[in-house]
């Protein structure tokens, strides 16, 4: 990191413009934009949701200029390490697998209980057909259980699969399922809860230790003054700290 600073300094000396450029560097925040209430595209076509508010507040506290970009979930990590944006803030649970490739800030939510939603309360989640989104930790969990896993490309299709009887239940984050089950009388939330992952954090490149420390401090300050808890309650993300 020291060398990076030196290199930028050297460059700044040679070209006067470059200094201000390096100083005003915008932090690009990568998100998915398809996972309410965490992040979604609102009616105006902008990124909105819990993480939008959280991210804007964090940037304000860290005195950074931030900009939002959306990216497909499948390639969200490859694009981060390749440098297309600087931070992932997309409801991404902290797991060991991911931690080997990128670094996480401290978690800004408690682990979100994963829930089952089905058409009847006595749906067979042990040995039945369970729908999950391809490539999620939920899909991996079902694959290891005795239930039959059926994977869909988008979360929307997993819900549709339960409605039309293709699957007995859908297995996904509670904060995602609850608002949907609330508005649809035919869907019910089962009692079983599973805790997966270690809460949600922001992902940064391993070589970007400084940025990670900056955001860590900002998250800590929001935890300390209770403003994070307010946001969590407002968006119904789960338990507060």
């Amino acid at each position, binding site marked *: 990191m020291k060398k990076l600073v030196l290199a930028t300094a050297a460059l700044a000396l040679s070209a006067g413009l470059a200094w201000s450029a390096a100083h005003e560097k915008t932090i690009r925040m990568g998100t998915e934009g398809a996972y309410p209430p965490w992040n979604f595209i609102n009616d105006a076509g902008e990124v909105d949701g819990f993480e939008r508010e959280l991210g804007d507040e964090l940037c304000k506290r860290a005195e950074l200029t931030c900009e939002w970009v959306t990216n497909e979930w499948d390639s969200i990590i490859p694009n981060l390490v390749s440098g297309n944006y600087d931070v992932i803030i997309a409801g991404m649970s902290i797991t060991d697998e991911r931690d080997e490739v990128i670094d996480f800030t401290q978690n800004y939510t408690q682990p979100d209980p994963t829930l089952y939603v089905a058409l009847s309360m006595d749906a067979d989640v042990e040995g039945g057909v369970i729908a999950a989104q391809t490539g999620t930790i939920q899909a991996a969990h079902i694959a*290891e259980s005795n239930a039959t896993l059926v994977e869909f490309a988008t979360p929307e299709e997993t819900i549709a699969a339960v409605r039309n009887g293709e699957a007995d239940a859908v297995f996904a984050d509670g904060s995602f399922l609850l608002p949907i089950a609330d508005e649809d009388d035919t869907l019910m939330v089962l009692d079983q809860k599973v805790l997966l992952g270690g809460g949600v954090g922001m992902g940064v490149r391993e070589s970007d230790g400084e940025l990670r420390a900056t955001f860590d401090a900002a998250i800590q300050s929001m935890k300390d003054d209770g403003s994070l808890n307010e946001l969590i309650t407002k968006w119904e993300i789960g338990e507060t700290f």
Partner: protein
Amino acid sequence: MSCWQTIQDYGLRAVGIGERLLPKEDFTLCQQFTLIGSGMIWNIYFGVLALLAGFFFATALALGKGSRNIWLRKSSEWFIFLFRGSPLFVQFFFGYFLFLSLKQVFPIFTPFTAAWLGALVVLFLNTSAYTGEIFYGALRSIPKGDVESADAYGFSGWPRFKKIVWPTMLRLAWPAYTNEAIFLFHATALVFFSGFPAWQQRGDALYYANYFADKTFNPFVPYPILAGYFIVLTVVVISVFGLANRRLNRHLPQEARKKLKLKVNVIR
């Protein structure tokens, strides 16, 4: 774990034989090659069956489009236009949706919501439309003399079609048809990617390539492996079609045979 062991465990994973759980660590090259290769079973299955069934339906469509009966002609034209004019992506979506609705009314449609049958039907209809258009174009360019000579020899109806018209049509259509076959095999990669759900992690080559890219967060290994498999598949398709082409043109003098090859893919 040795590579041979991996092949035994995962070589047939795509059809549900072998180890139940996908690899969770290491993600060695051997694992990637084996599982992605295992997924190719589905790509080949979809491609070969859709191509075989589509061949016959396409012949019917081409004849229908050239028919004097207005109902036959119009329905063939519309079928071809609908399937040639829309992306496969959209066709898969509507196919899956339609089979789901049919299933609610007629239980006989239950297997159609699974990829092995539902996606096969969509691919079959899709390739029939493209091939039908190719065959129709070939049908129109059969030399007039050939048909006239057939008439003079007393051929008519079914024998004339079987012995004269059909072989000539195939001969003319073959280079373009080869291209269509290549495109169809490539299209099979879309089945699990955007069309049909994958049951118990049994998917095609792209599904497993995606799995590894997702686990290792490195797209530069699994996707090139997938590409390599497809290049091999394409080479095989081209050589098989080349053999058939030689047989179709075996009556022509040596010079003319070469010339035919020059008319590469007139239409897809």
